[in-house]
């Protein structure tokens, strides 16, 4: 018995032998993200899963025991000939199996179903004009797309980076897994991190583009929306958007299906399952598998820094676009619309609407903008999905 040889073999088969300097950096980054999620409560439901996925995939790099094989998904062979799902199912690690849901676009669509089941479209139906604010905020997507091209990214990569400005994690993942899967990790981390930082990113921009008088505007109470309107709306949106942009049918179809379960009044059990159990399960699978794609050797690149910078620009331009269009509506309505609600057009339901409420209340303590901001907020979800559908139709 050669004890030395056994010890050597043990060492070589352990995780320590496979660790490289990038792995240590990624472990530190994942711990920082865990801290932000647990202590600072930044989007904890997603950030903790992403950070933990990042941690375990960078600890298990030993050949034969790896949880995630990046080459199988984004390697040259996979890009040229498509993913070999037989290999994934036979030899894949735990995260490889979970990642099938990302690659096939199942998780983002199911998350959208949950979002639809949890969201009341009433404020948007009550104030249909607020949809324009949701459209205006998508300017951030295309500004970031243009800047990404300027920085030398390809069309598919720039489209994936631009969609960060939609402030919608599932949409960003859905588009990126098809157009630029090798950038999925930095784009997902940037999208969810900035969504968590919305209370810090948006207020300075909102104040910079508005006067105190504009921020103080109290809006009229929204009308009541009938049950019939709430039932017809998701069906009609599905028909209209799927005819315009079939590429986005899975996302918007699921969003509207979830909302229909909520509003129709005869599927309470299904609505409850979609809102809670299904949403939670998919969130766990999605966050771990997306986080696990952040392997040090590919994540620690100059492009990641560029993506993080462009993501921030996308959020800022999206907020500015919404607020500026809000100012236009303020003028056209004779001062009846508070331009702050335009900032909620960036999607990020309902956090962006809460930020509009807080800023409005700071300017006028008797102001209550939350329900008014929910209109553009929900329109932003639809708008970002349409923006993604357009980019998919062009570059997909």
């Amino acid at each position, binding site marked *: 018995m050669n004890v030395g040889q056994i010890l050597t073999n043990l060492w070589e088969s352990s995780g320590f032998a496979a660790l490289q300097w990038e792995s240590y950096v990624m472990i530190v980054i994942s711990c920082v993200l865990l801290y932000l999620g647990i202590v600072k409560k930044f989007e904890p439901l997603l950030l903790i899963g992403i950070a933990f996925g990042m941690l375990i995939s960078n600890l298990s790099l030993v050949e034969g025991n790896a949880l995630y094989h990046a080459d199988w998904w984004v390697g040259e062979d996979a890009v040229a000939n498509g993913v070999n799902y037989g290999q994934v199912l036979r030899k894949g690690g735990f995260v490889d199996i979970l990642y099938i849901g990302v690659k096939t676009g199942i998780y983002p669509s199911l998350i959208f179903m949950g979002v639809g089941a949890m969201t009341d479209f009433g404020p948007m139906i009550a104030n*249909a004009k607020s949809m*324009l604010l949701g459209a205006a905020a998508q*300017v951030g997507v*295309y500004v970031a797309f*243009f800047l990404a091209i300027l920085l030398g990214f390809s*069309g598919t990569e720039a489209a994936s980076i631009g969609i960060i400005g939609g402030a919608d994690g599932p949409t960003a993942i859905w588009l990126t897994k098809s157009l630029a899967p090798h950038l999925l990790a930095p784009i997902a981390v940037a999208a969810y991190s900035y969504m968590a930082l919305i209370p810090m990113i948006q207020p300075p921009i909102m104040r910079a583009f508005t006067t105190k008088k504009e921020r103080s505007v109290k809006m009229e109470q929204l009308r009541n929306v009938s049950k019939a309107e709430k039932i017809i709306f998701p069906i009609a949106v599905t028909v209209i958007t799927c005819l315009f942009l079939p590429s986005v049918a899975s996302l918007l179809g699921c969003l509207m299906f979830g909302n229909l379960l909520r509003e129709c009044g005869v599927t309470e059990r299904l609505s409850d399952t979609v809102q809670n159990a299904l949403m939670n399960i998919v969130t766990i699978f999605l966050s771990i598998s997306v986080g696990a794609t952040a392997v040090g050797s590919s994540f620690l690149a100059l492009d990641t820094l560029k993506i993080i910078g462009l993501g921030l620009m996308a959020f800022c331009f999206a907020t500015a676009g919404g607020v500026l269009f809000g100012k236009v509506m303020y003028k056209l309505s004779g001062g009846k619309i508070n331009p702050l609600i335009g900032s909620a057009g960036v999607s990020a339901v309902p956090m962006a609407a809460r930020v509009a409420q807080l800023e409005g209340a700071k300017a006028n303590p008797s102001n209550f903008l939350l329900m008014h901001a929910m209109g553009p907020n929900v329109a932003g979800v*639809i708008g970002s999905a349409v923006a993604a559908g357009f980019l998919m139709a062009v570059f997909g």
Partner: protein
Amino acid sequence: MPLMHFLNSASSVDVSSEAAANAEVTLTDALGYSGLGVGIVFAVLVVLMAFIALMSALLRGSDKPKAAPAPKAEKPAPAPAPVSKVEESVPVSAPDGAMYVTLDGKKHTVTVVEKVPQFTVKLGGKVHSVDVEPVEEVVE
């Protein structure tokens, strides 16, 4: 895709998937895509907005309340009988439908006509309203 063919013919930018995905995107192309993208988002949401406005108008139109029927002339309530000098007194134990009241110190047998909303009794062929109050002692 019909929309893409329409955009190709309506703009100078080739927005077909093959062309865009494979070719290098120039800044001019990027500007074109951005403009088209914003336009598409606005177009879709404006269509949805118009649909909401139409749907709301139709549904609210059909929900308008029908003309209310002319209010029925209410029957005048029967005028209460003039209250005579019945002293507000107390009900005492008596068979159902009959009771005693004291009036000017004398005890009279009365018949209960109505208990609600107003306690009324018949005394000497006339109907009288009586205020009933609880008492501690029963007057015999």
